[in-house]
């Protein structure tokens, strides 16, 4: 089981309702999951897995916690 948390600022920005989003699966890459779930565009997302910013080709393992942060520009 992989847990998904969507940061409130991402949810507000892109109008995503966490309760209705498809969950990631073990073995799937972050990139594939984002496309499959329709959660948003790569360019708008900073994916954080187990509290660590991860590359797009990272494959999920059982027990991972994925957090979706907005990749808002900063200065």
């Amino acid at each position: 089981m992989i847990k998904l948390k969507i940061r409130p600022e991402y949810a507000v920005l892109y109008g995503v309702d966490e309760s209705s989003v498809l969950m990631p699966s073990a073995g799937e890459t972050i990139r594939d999951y984002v496309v499959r779930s329709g959660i948003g565009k790569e360019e708008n997302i900073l994916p954080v897995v187990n509290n660590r910013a991860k590359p797009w080709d990272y494959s999920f393992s059982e027990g991972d916690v994925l957090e979706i942060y907005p990749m808002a520009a900063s200065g």
Partner: protein
Amino acid sequence: MKGYWGRILSIDLSDSAITAITPDERLYRDYIGGSGIGARLLYDMTGPETDPLGPDNPIIWMTGPFTGTKVPTSGRHQITSRSPLTGIFGESDAGGRFGTALKRSGWDGVIVKGMSDKPVIIVIRDDKVTIEPAGGVWGKDTFYTDKHMKERFGPSCETSCIGVAGEKLVPISCIGHDGENARMAGRCGFGAVMGSKKLKAVAVIGNRETEIADPERLMAQQKKMVPIIVEKTKGMHLLGTAGGTAAAEKMGDIPVQNWRRGNWPDAEKITGQVMADTILTKNYYCASCPIGCGRDVEIKNGKWAGVKGAGPEYETLGLMGGSCLVNDLEAITYAADLCNRHGVDTIEAGSAVAMAMECFEKGFLSRDELDGINAEWGSAEALVALTEKICSAEGVGKLLGLGVAGMARKIPGAESFAVHVKGLTFPAHDPRCFNTLALGYATSNRGACHLSSSAYFFEKTAVMPEFGYEKPRQRYTEGGEGLLNFHAQNLMGLMDSLKMCKFTIYGGVNVTEICEWYEAVTGIKTSVKEMAETGERIFNLKRLYNIRLGLRRKDDRLPERILSTPRRDEGTGDYTPDLEPMLDEYYRVRGWDDDGVPKPETIERLGLS
């Protein structure tokens, strides 16, 4: 030549001479405007012997061909001078409305040299240019000065002015625009350059528009690009630059405790979201901008009540927040407001306070030496008290107002934790988070500057398809940092010359769109290759300015703390940048020798002989 007036105003404050320069068209072709023409003028007007605070150092306000047009985010101008903070080439870009007003006054730019005996202001009303006594605005803050000028010269008057810090020649002082909306030309200590000339303000009232070569083409491009820019930068509109704060902490980008550690969960308390939920009143838009990343805030109650105006940017939150471990958004906003009013760079001020906190912890500065301020990490009271000292240039504020490099020169042993390159402190982006940023900081012509290459944009979300970057680069990819910085620095120099906000890059703007706008505005046919080469010429000219001052590879450094101390957080792990191989690749790509000097054939190719 459309998009320009073809004339630059020159004012000598020593003898009150006011003249119009009509540069050769070649200058506009080769250096475009803004940063490029500013650099060319500075190169030609100064030499190694020029004292940054002497009469021979000019201060140059330049617009670009896009300024004053409908090109999105083009309401900007560039200020160029030799920096009193670093002693080397200096420049600072600002948004707001001053650039547009200057362009509409019928001038492409203003050069001010010499020195007045008494405090003065310069007033530009189209062709009528006067030097007038500063009168009651000398000794007043930037908000008051801007308001006073509007009352005196009418609501369309826009002002570029200094606060008390610039008058007192504080090395980290800066130049303010737009009054309480505080669009600051923050970096390089230019407040002190104006102060040394006893120039309080340049006030501009302009009502003319430059001719556009092809208005229909410009309009078509607007219609195509503005909705894309607006959609892609929605986050910046809603949350401002501060919207990236929480993500920056996760990635390992935000400075924490004077750049000596990683995680800082308290970043959650100072995010753009928190600002939006608490003190935000409305968005602020620079002229011609569809994004509106600026924050207007108000603090009505509590200890830090009384602030009404610009809210803190990400950079300010990073330095005054993360780097000082201060998690009180209202206290940071209050300290930033002090800086805006007094005309002080919040990046340098936040960095100086963090360094003072570390000096206090290590026993390098006692409480007595800190004027009784208990400079403990995380103390919001200490942040505000030390910022007040910097702004008024009193007591220990004189030491902190030197900036971190100047502080390190005065405090034995402190150089090991003074975080700067070439005398300019780091903005709130960590080169241990993006290796391209490490090289970008080391080679930026004005010192540690995140906007000179903005290479880290291309490790986050941005792309440069024209140069082979179809997708954002993965962080920590090894090799290629030199090539990416080459392209990014050339592009950023170009944007600073045309005058466009770099946040449009997040909005999908690239060189192809820039060429389209340039042709529509000026009527000059161009290409991606030619534009890129113009950016390259401008970057190399600034490099040659510093080479003439004796700078070489030895100066393309990163501070000891960054090279030797990993953040050890979840975002960056044990990474520290390995700069030497990156420099080797970069010099090769740039056509420079091993010591970082442009080779004769490079100088020749770029027409810089």
